[in-house]
């Protein structure tokens, strides 16, 4: 079952399955978010937004609306 990146729970390792095409899609790619990469949410800002993710040993912070563009599945 696939979900989007904004809705996964903390510390759950998932794999990116698709990125919706939009103006920020190339930006997500160049930050290392591409199909097949493993990613997990590691902490959230107060109010639950933005969310910090770990990918390839980096911490990337993303707003929920941006994370919604990223489709993931259980790793």
């Amino acid at each position, binding site marked *: 079952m696939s979900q989007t990146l904004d809705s996964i729970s903390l510390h759950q390792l998932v794999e990116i399955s698709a*990125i919706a*095409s*939009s*103006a*920020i*899609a*190339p*930006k*997500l*790619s*160049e*930050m*290392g978010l*591409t*199909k097949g990469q493993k990613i997990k949410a*590691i*902490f959230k*800002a*107060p*109010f639950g*937004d*933005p969310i*910090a993710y*770990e990918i*390839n*040993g*980096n*911490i*990337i*912070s*993303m*707003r929920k609306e*941006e994370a919604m563009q990223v489709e993931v599945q259980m790793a």
Partner: protein
Amino acid sequence: MKIALLGNPNTGKSTVFNMLTGLRQQVGNFPGVTVDKKQGSVKTPKHTQQLLDFPGTYSIFARALDEQVVQDVLTNKQHPDFPDAVIYVADAANLERNLLFFSQLYDLGFPILLVLNMWDRAQRKGLRINVELLQKQFPAAAIVTANARVAIGKDRILQALDALPSQDRTAFHDLDLSVLLTDSAQTENTNARLDKLRNLGLVQSASTTTVNNSMRLDRILTHRIYGYLIFTAVLLVIFQFIFSFASIPMDFIDAQFVRLSAWVADSLPEGLLSKLISQGLIPGIGGVFVFVPQIAILFFFIALLEESGYLSRVVFIMDRIMRPFGLNGKSVVPLLSSVACAIPGIMSARTISDWKERLITILVAPFMSCSARIPVYTLLISLVIPKSYIGGIINLQGLVLFGLYALGILFALGTAFILRFLVRSGKPGFHLMELPEYKAPRIYNVGIAVYEKVKIFIFDAGKIIVAISILLWALATYGPSSRDQKLKDLQQQTIYIQATSLEQQEQENSLLLSQSYIGHFGKWMEPAIAPLGYDWKIGIALLSSFAAREVFVGSLATIYAVGDDTNINKRLVQKLRAEKNESGQVVYSLATGASLLVFYVFAMQCMATLAVVKRETNSWKWPLLQLVFMGCVAYLSAFFVYQLLI
């Protein structure tokens, strides 16, 4: 030869720049936009080269303002800043993603030097990088390793620059510039590159990399309670420095310029030139330098927080709160700094990469009550607000002061909310941001950041400030010829003849100011400000305090012939309380006082802010719009307050 310095954010790019150029650097703008363009000269064994530092970006594909500059310059051979060669700084501990932008530049055909920076960190992380393989994939590039934080690799870089290979190459992956045109083509090209880079097997890691150390700190620093508490504490420290400690160097600078003025007045033959220099020019320049301590202190702290990696955590925890107002997390530092002084506040808005959000932040920042308003607030509050207590505990004067600060903040946010719908922007703002690892700030980088901000302020904004202050001085010092007759009339009155020489001087100054061009202008505009409860004397003080808000107090003191001594406030308050208008009513009633307070919360009344906004928006359009808008808000709200209370 012109060399561009490029790389991702947080790769130590500016450290490399500082290492290579030292203090031989200058900061300006890229043509037509307000994005920092840092230039410096580099001495290689054989040549002296120009090094041009570009904003840190992740690729050639632009979304934000600073990325646009990179894209525009590098894809246009006719651009005046188009480089002959590129130094690319990559974080060795994060190689694959860093190589994306490098491979794009390689394929654009630039002679290129790849600096694998933070080499030590990569090794500490247990990463083994196959440099030979990398060289094989990019045969036309020169590759060196470095650790710029401790100045390792400087010689290697300099030597490599003299021997940059520029031969033709086969592209790593096709990069046709038509790729720039659509989002999906950009995504596709990026993904293909990243896949290729990952499949090369350049990096072997001994252990799985983790971000555990950073995590432990982040759990506290971004916590929903401790996070804000710590941020508040950090702010308190910064404000303490700006409010209390900055006044020591500021008073010192002030005193030196007063001495210099006196010295010039004594040594030059009396006349127009001597007056222009000693009373117009020198105080004008003094009015520029007096801001230096506040700017230096604020940017010292901002650079410290930025270098350490904490600033991006502040942005992280504030983003959600600022978003409804059309601002983002990065607006927090400029806005809060403006409580001390809008000038460094506005200058710090440069970190906001989205142009619309940056502009809104700059436009609303002067609504925050700055420290120059304090003398005005203090005088007016002690004048019209009774020293009583509400419910026996809450000091009414204190409550009013608090209210004025709150009013400024509310208005700043409210205006931002409205501007969100009015300011047009091409591309939506986003918040995709790396939270870099925490590291100890390098004091050398901090020092250079402070030095540059001070230099920009003095040379760019300074010119405008000096020009306006000389103009204001001339208008307040000279007047129509009828003034001489009035002065003679005064000198024959008993009240003048019986006064001490000090009092005589005060009376003369008062007459000279009220008969000056500004004085006449104040009288002329009296009908326009009468509905706010002001007379022409207040009009003069309003006009002359466009130089800076606190001048309001000094101008009133001159008009009411209260000398320039330490008890100025006390004597002035007594004098103002006694002031009656033609029909015998008190001039400084509660209504007039409250109206003035509100006026000073909102009105621009600061030529230095105007000059800085001009510098930071690169046009006169925005500062003038801001001046008019803030003036209208001030006028209307002062009008309502006066009419309500009278």
